[in-house]
């Protein structure tokens, strides 16, 4: 049994996040107390939130990449839906995934590179954590959920949030599933006037403490490699303990928190475009409130799967097949049906951004205290190209980011975008990526 | 896959060929002395073979066209609606308006506030816990306006309604010509009555039930009775009506088909948007042989028509299950095989007593709110308009002509296995010798 995750300098560096000498992966009691100690009540900074949004099959560059570079870019047809939210979105074009000779696995290498900074050695190789996991390690604090993952496709297999291929975070696959997780029996309304700590919660916590303590005996009996695996289990166990402990305290009030109603009706299963959109938007509404109600600080939304793509009623072919078989319309300059699928995807992205921007928070909105990092598996799905792979970063990160820019990467690898995000979130990560993807650079044009 | 006939024919050709060549060879070897005699033999042999081959070919051709395999079509009904024709102009059908309901008749019968209060004092009983908020329950007392509080829903002849039922005044209706006359004159099996013309111009339509129900809001499009029964018909397994059309030569035109009606018991599957799916298997419910009926029929240009038979149907209508009896029942169905569906009419004379009992039990509790007619008026109209099977003593017709619009999808009708609890003791018995019953 070998280490599921390698120990690298990067790992140790990440362990220095927060400057509190915390060892990575564990929201220590100190950290948690600090967070609570600097609660909103006394005017301390509102916590920054982070999310990833991943879609499959790239974009059509002739009608996606704005002509203007810099602030206040134009909106080509594929992103016309961003009309009301463009000012919140930074768009990144002309960034190339440099593979260092590794095979650029179709529908795989692209998103892995954008989310982990590492080009995988082969298709299926998932050895590095995705950016949201790294961020959650740092900023999840004592929020009720370390992170929340959703799959708009409705499939358990669609999650772009993982510490490694052996530790993929299981997504919520329907609005009701998400609602039950977020607002089920354990939910405590932060704005409720009558708070009483539940004795059952204290008891649960103490039982789990007992489990952890007696379970340590198991560590003596297994090999070193498996100890690391069990470690990770104990980390998760400890996080649940701390989460329970936190629930014994009256949660700080969350001004914009409005507890949503249970979603009515059931969205039928399937990857039909209309169903995915409906699932996505309903889950976004629930997720937005989860952020506003401080249930979590980190989320990940898989809008569509990088390989199979979506379908549409009555169309024999799925989106993926269409990207390979549909010819480019000479007048339009793109594949019309594929264009349609992707435009709708960007419309759903705009829905997310608008939802976050609609929640008032502090002097602005929830989005102002957020960063949402969006990426895809390819630039042009037809030829599986990963040069010019598109990314978006929305939200001002509590004032540390500027928005509304179109940044031309001039062929650079995409890793500076991720590193910029990590810095904006207040981590002191020094570098991101490996090989030619390694960078220490940030995109200064969008940093304040 | 090589056809049997081709194999036989090829074989025979080979035999023929070998016989000739063989004998020629033999001839050559044996010598010329026996040539004439042997030649004749060989010729006969070959000729016989040749003739045999041709015969086989002919009979094979026969097999391919004349005695073709008979086909069977199975159907399951997915909709059963009282056929209420609406022209679009309500005034044409119901110039005076819709039915008076029970409450209106009550108010006519007890025309003063004092009379009503007195009536209420005697008959309004709300029961414990029922403080008058349930209007449906409360207003049922208005049915007790027969003598000594008789419920007029159960006893519709106990009063004469001051406001009689409004009947359809127009001349168009769905249905079939059931009595065989052009003008509705009295016959041994029917009473004198007026006829309708069908929407596509067919004369001589008998549908007295439409005359009665046509001015009921409940039975017109969007009305309660219609909407309720639409889903009830498919949801209640009791309402599983299976129709098997056998002895078919050609699905478009067949002279002498046999149509068997069965009661089924299995649910009808739906697709994602609510359409009923074809090709499911449905077991015959052989526990109740009276629901199995058989009639002769014809298919002409894809439309099936059957000869009249008397048939019992188990139906759940407005939550009440009972056995309805349609006499002189005929079916006209358009078998649209491309969509694996069919639609048309089942028409016949509804046995009045059974029909009214269904209405009494299932609808009359709701006559004040959602069903909206008045039982005594309804019953009186039905008695008056009844046009089928006169009672030999009194001359009162005991059945009323009716038509039901039906839809169906293709079904696979199967017998239950011998271990299936559906199988009654003893074997399935059909009236094999007579095709119609009386």
């Amino acid at each position, binding site marked *: 049994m070998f280490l599921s995750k390698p120990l690298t300098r990067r790992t140790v560096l990440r362990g220095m996040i927060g400057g509190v000498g915390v060892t990575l992966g564990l929201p220590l009691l100190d950290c948690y107390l600090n967070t609570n100690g600097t609660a909103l009540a006394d005017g301390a900074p509102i916590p920054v939130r982070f999310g990833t949004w991943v879609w499959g099959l790239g974009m059509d560059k002739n009608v996606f990449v704005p002509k203007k570079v810099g602030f206040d870019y134009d909106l080509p047809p594929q992103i016309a839906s961003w009309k009301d939210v463009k000012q919140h979105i930074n768009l990144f074009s002309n960034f190339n995934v440099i593979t260092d000779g590794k095979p650029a696995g179709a529908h795989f290498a692209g998103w892995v590179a954008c989310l982990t900074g590492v080009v995988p050695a082969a298709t299926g190789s998932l050895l590095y954590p995705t950016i949201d996991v790294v961020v959650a390690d740092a900023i999840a604090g004592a929020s009720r959920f370390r992170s929340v993952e959703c799959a708009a496709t409705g499939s358990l297999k669609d999650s772009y949030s993982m510490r490694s291929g052996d530790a993929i975070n299981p997504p919520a696959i329907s609005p009701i599933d998400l609602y039950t997780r977020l607002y089920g029996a354990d939910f405590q309304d932060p704005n409720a006037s009558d708070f009483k700590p539940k004795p059952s919660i204290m008891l649960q916590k103490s039982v789990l403490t007992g489990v952890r303590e007696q379970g340590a005996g198991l560590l003596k009996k*297994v090999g070193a490699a498996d100890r690391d695996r069990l*470690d990770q*289990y104990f980390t998760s166990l400890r996080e649940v303990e701390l989460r329970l402990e936190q629930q014994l305290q009256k949660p700080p009030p969350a001004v914009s928190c409005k507890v949503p109603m249970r979603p009515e009706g059931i969205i039928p299963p399937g990857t039909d475009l209309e169903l995915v959109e409906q699932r996505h938007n309903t889950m976004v509404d629930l997720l937005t409130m989860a952020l506003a109600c401080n249930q979590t600080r980190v989320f990940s939304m898989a809008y569509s799967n990088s390989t199979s793509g979506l379908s549409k009623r009555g169309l024999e072919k799925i989106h993926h097949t269409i990207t390979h078989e549909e010819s480019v319309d000479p007048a339009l300059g793109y594949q019309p049906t594929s264009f349609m699928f992707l435009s709708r995807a960007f419309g759903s992205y705009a829905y997310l951004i608008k939802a976050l921007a609609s929640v008032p928070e502090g002097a602005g909105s929830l989005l102002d205290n957020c960063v949402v990092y969006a990426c895809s598996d390819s630039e042009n799905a037809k030829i599986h190209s990963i040069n010019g792979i598109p990314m978006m970063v929305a939200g001002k990160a509590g004032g540390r980011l500027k928005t509304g820019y179109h940044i031309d990467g001039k062929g650079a690898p995409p890793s500076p975008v991720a590193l910029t995000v990590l810095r904006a979130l207040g981590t002191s990560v020094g570098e991101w990526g490996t090989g030619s993807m390694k960078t220490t650079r940030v995109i200064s044009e969008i940093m304040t | 896959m090589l056809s049997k006939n081709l194999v036989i024919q090829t074989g025979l050709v080979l035999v023929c060929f070998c016989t000739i060549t063989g004998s020629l060879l033999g001839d050559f070897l044996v010598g010329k002395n026996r040539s004439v005699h042997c030649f004749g033999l060989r010729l006969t042999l070959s000729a016989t073979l040749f003739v045999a081959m041709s015969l086989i070919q002919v009979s094979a051709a026969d097999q391919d066209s004349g005695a073709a395999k008979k086909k069977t079509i199975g159907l399951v009904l997915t909709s059963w609606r009282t056929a209420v024709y609406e022209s679009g102009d309500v005034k044409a059908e119901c110039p005076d308006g819709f039915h008076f309901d029970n409450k209106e008749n009550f108010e006519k019968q007890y025309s003063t506030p004092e009379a009503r209060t007195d009536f209420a004092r005697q008959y309004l009983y709300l029961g414990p816990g029922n403080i008058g908020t349930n209007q449906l329950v409360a207003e049922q007392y208005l049915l007790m306006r027969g003598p000594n509080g008789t419920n007029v829903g159960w006893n519709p002849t106990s009063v004469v309604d001051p406001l009689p039922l409004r009947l359809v005044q127009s001349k168009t209706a769905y249905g079939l010509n059931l009595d065989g006359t052009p003008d509705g004159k009295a016959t041994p099996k029917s009473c004198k009555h007026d006829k309708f013309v069908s929407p596509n111009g067919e004369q001589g339509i008998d549908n007295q039930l439409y005359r009665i129900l046509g001015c009921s809001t409940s039975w017109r499009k969007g009305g309660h009775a219609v909407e309720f029964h639409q889903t009830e018909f498919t949801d209640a397994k009791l309402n599983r009506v299976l129709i098997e059309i056998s002895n078919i030569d050609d699905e478009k035109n067949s002279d002498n088909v046999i149509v068997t009606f069965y009661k089924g018991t299995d649910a009808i599957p739906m697709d994602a948007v609510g359409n009923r799916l074809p090709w499911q298997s449905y077991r015959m419910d052989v526990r109740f042989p009276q629901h199995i009926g058989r009639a002769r029929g014809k298919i002409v240009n894809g439309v099936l028509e059957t000869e009249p038979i008397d048939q019992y149907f188990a139906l759940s209508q407005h939550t009440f299950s009972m056995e309805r009896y349609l006499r002189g029942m005929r079916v006209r169905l358009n078998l649209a095989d491309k969509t694996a569906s069919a639609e048309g009419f089942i028409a016949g004379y509804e046995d009045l007593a059974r029909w009214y009992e269904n209405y009494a039990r299932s609808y009359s509790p709701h006559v004040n709110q959602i069903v909206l007619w008045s039982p005594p008026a309804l019953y009186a109209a039905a008695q008056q308009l009844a046009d089928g099977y006169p009672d030999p003593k009194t001359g009162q017709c005991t059945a009323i002509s009716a038509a039901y619009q039906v839809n169906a999808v293709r079904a696979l009708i199967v017998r239950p296995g011998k271990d299936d609890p559906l199988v009654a003791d003893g074997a399935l018995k059909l009236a094999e010798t007579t095709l119609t019953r009386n």
Partner: protein
Amino acid sequence: MTTGHWTSTLMPAFVVGGLMLVHLCAQGQEPAAAPPAVNAPVIRLMNAGQYANEIAYVFGSDIKAPLRLPSFRRVDGLAGLGAGSALVPAGTFNIFYGTAQAVAEQVVGPAHRDLLIPCKPKEAHMPDDVCAGQFLGKVGHLIFHRPLSADVLRVCVKAAHETGERLQNFYAGLQYALTGMLVAPEFLYLVEEVEPDPRHPGVSRLDGPSRAMRLGLLLWNAPPDVELLRAAESGELQTTAGTARQVGRMLASPLRLENGIRAFFSDMLLLDAFPDLVKDPIIYPDFTAKVATDSSEQILQIISDQLLTRQGDYRDIFTTRRIFLTQALATLYRIPISIPSSLDWAPYDLPDNDPRAGILTQVGFLSVNSHPGRSSATRRGKALRENFMCQTVPEPPPNVDFSAIENPDPRLRTARERLDMHRKNPVCAGCHKITDPLGLPLESFDGAGKFRATENGAEIDTSGSFSGKQFQDARGLAAAVHDDPAITSCLVRRLYEYGVGRRISAEEKSVVRDLESGFKDAGYRFVPLLRAIATSAAFYSISATVPDATRTLSTSLAGSSRH
């Protein structure tokens, strides 16, 4: 100790240790590629099926254990191997925790407590350590797969005591303690441990309970039952005769053996794809959710019937005419079938002229390896190669030029004509030559698995050849597949790897070859193959050393950790 011992046992261990050291020092570098597998003890994370079987065994099938998790990473095609490296991130832990709470609540609930908790507390509103100890000790022994040590039992009873006291309810106390046990690592992780081998000093072997674990998981897809634990703890499982006895017992338990066989084939045949199987409602309106569920279950019923009920030749799953139908499935098959209301399924023997035979031609395989609105010869061929023959189909090359297949000519009405283009283009042909010829004969079945004679009005050509045999139709393909040696060798290899929980090492190739020839001698019957594996010495052999107890734990409970 001889040199032979040294080389064959300690050397690998040193190599392992050395590699790990190198690993620890390798900072700022790429992780090393996965090294060759070594016969190490495996620690598997429990999967949902094993969890359900365990709860049903310990508490009865009345107790529901709702658990829905994504499958583990597949290694060599098997999620059962990914179990050996699966981690528990916070989200997964939460899910396990929720299930644990649900189970514990039912167990102590009034409907079940009398049956499941035989002892009664002195007072129901107070803790009772004696009764709690009895119950938790007995349950703990089963769910932790080893007798609880005095310390651990003390912790469990203490938890029950404190909560029972606080809530003034004995059963609530038990509920909390049980919830804790159901998220304990000893329950969630199916651990194999080693002990010194008394016959070979300095060498380790799997201890009794670990041998029991392997047996239970392979044969029944469940951790060991009471009798197997007893055999483990008494040392019987360290003997050939003892092992054979337990194997015989377990193979003779039809329901539990069926669970095991189903679990293996569900993994090998990727049946976890079925919950996501949805067809276009306009193109295939009759492919309802029930059809999707039934079609997956049908595969398992056919396999179970052939391998277990009939104890038949494994290869006959490709040619069998005996299938199982529900009303929903029969509708797609257009087969008239009478099924009593009380049953869902009925067996059905396909008539001689039916175009279907074996699992490749049933709705499940055909529909799950198709698109929502269309069939896919390529996907079906790929599934046949990868799932049944252990042959890897390479990824499409990243820079493939798709202009050749762009906007396929609408005059090309059948899939064969459309896919022809792939096979003509040398870049595409490499893989499509491997997949398409196996999928094209199955084109007589559309994307929902329904039979069709034509596609877009054109006759479908289902002829082809495989493994040296020519055929005209799907049944011919199935017969050719039946005889291909890859079918049986793949099964043996997969089953063995599934059992040992990891990829086979180079030394084990000969073991697998021996099993293959034994399989052939047994007429390719599955149960004898299971027996052969479960009673072989190789199945239990490991070559790790006993962990050094003096090594300090670099990880802890007080808070520091690596991930």
